């Protein structure tokens, strides 16, 4: 009689086989990894989007400033000329442009509707200033304007820019924090699952130690199993998350300065890094749990 082959070829597969299959609870690890990675994709999208938002707003607002002139009707033209003359002699200004009545009307149209009798309203004059590199000295310009045209106010957008940029970077921080928390939670859950599996298999581990198995061999069986489960779950979770993000409506159509929650360019590569990262987390968590648990047994 030919003796049946006792074991399959690869030692790694054999290491997996010495631990009995864990039954219906096995998919819980996969599920957890999947759910966590799914959430992580959104946290990642949030961080990247807010980062982009901060940059976009800062850039758009940083380069330009507006001079607003509110003056009595008979003074408007005189002061406008004074402002333009001042700007012409100020270093650090790339260009400036008086926004005429037609353009002002267009700017106001979304708020007041068409057919606004702009001539009848005390609408301030607007002058757009684009800064050069190096930029002009804002404080100096303000003082000169006050002297030349008392009704002029320089708005360099800093008061808009700073809170927007701050908000965006806070959101990014929250996103990063969420990713860290999700990672830590996943590590904790996998540690708990691994410890439970190790406790359930204490008798198996005792037998393996009895026949001369090293800790690393026993740990390998558990570590491989949990790492593979996590990798599978995380891959499914990341794929689902990507589909979810891709299905979000594009915000660019709605407004130029808003940015959509999603990925752009190389940002799309980040979610693909999540499953390997989750697997590394699972590997380290299980390995740590296994060696801790094994120390309790002789």
């Amino acid at each position, binding site marked *: *009689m030919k*003796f*049946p*082959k*006792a*074991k399959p070829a690869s*030692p790694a597969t*054999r290491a997996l*086989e*010495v631990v*009995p*299959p864990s039954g219906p609870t096995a998919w819980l690890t996969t599920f957890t990894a999947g759910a966590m990675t799914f959430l992580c994709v959104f946290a990642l999208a949030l961080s990247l989007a807010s980062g982009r938002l901060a940059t976009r707003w800062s850039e758009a607002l940083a380069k330009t400033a507006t001079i607003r002139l509110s003056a009595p009707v008979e003074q408007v033209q005189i002061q406008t000329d004074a402002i333009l003359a001042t700007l012409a002699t100020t270093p650090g200004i790339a260009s400036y442009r008086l926004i005429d009545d037609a353009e002002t009307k267009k700017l106001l149209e979304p708020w007041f509707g068409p057919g606004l009798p702009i001539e009848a309203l005390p609408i301030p004059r607007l002058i757009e200033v684009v800064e050069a590199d190096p930029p002009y000295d804002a404080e100096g310009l303000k003082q000169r304007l006050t002297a030349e045209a008392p009704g002029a106010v320089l708005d360099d957008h800093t008061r808009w820019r700073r809170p927007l940029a701050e908000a965006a970077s806070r959101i990014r921080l929250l996103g990063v924090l969420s990713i860290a928390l999700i990672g830590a939670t996943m590590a904790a859950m996998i540690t708990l699952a691994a410890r439970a599996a190790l406790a359930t298999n204490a*008798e*198996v581990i*005792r*037998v*393996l*130690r*009895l*026949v*001369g*198995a*090293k*800790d*690393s*061999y026993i740990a390998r069986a558990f570590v491989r199993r949990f790492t593979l489960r996590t990798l599978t779950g995380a891959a499914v979770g990341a794929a689902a998350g990507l589909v979810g993000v891709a299905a979000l409506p594009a915000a660019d159509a709605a407004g130029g300065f808003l940015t959509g929650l999603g990925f752009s360019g190389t940002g799309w590569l980040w979610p693909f890094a999540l499953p390997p990262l989750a697997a590394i987390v699972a590997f380290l968590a299980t390995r740590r749990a296994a060696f801790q648990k*094994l*120390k309790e047994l*002789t």
Partner: protein
Amino acid sequence: MISFENVAYSYGGGELLSDVSLKLAPGSFHFLTGPSGAGKSTFLKLAYAELLPSSGRVTLFDNDVTKLSRDDVARTRRRIGIVHQDCKFLDHMTLAANMALPFTVSDRESDAQDMDDLLSWVGLKHLADALPPQMSGGERQRAALARAVIVDPDVILADEPTGNVDWEMSLRILTLLVELNKMGKTILVATHDLNLIRQAKAQIQARVLRIAKHRVQLAGADL
């Protein structure tokens, strides 16, 4: 091979074994006897580093057990075949896979011919694909013995190897142990079965260690 120097083992508060000094010489055959709870299993566990002595020195293959790392313990156990009363198999793996386990865990291949011979020797060839829970007590004991010797260990430690089997099977297991001893293995069998010891003494030069009053003494020839 295995030596004890003034070894004591205590747990809780009571001392179970004290002042134990002895040497198991290569190729010797020892029985260890004594009433239940006297410390037979504890003595064996000290001999394969499952337990560490509370005081004194246990030396396995010239190494002080207290100085062995966990991996050293694993390596040492590959040179010691251990047969337990309750056998300790992996119930989800076939008998053949269980027997190959000492090879599997050290990432070595077992020779199919050796395995075949070993199964025939213990009379379990027909059960190679059976799962351990499907086997009888005697079959399990013989399988445990086969697993203990598969890596060709220098020492075999057996804890009540005939505890769960009838007399006929006990004799069969004894015969296997005697054969191993004749092949040069050092054997230590813990048992409370005096008939088994008498039977062995008829076949082989066996010494009897008796645990009494926490001490391990060499028993006289009279038994």
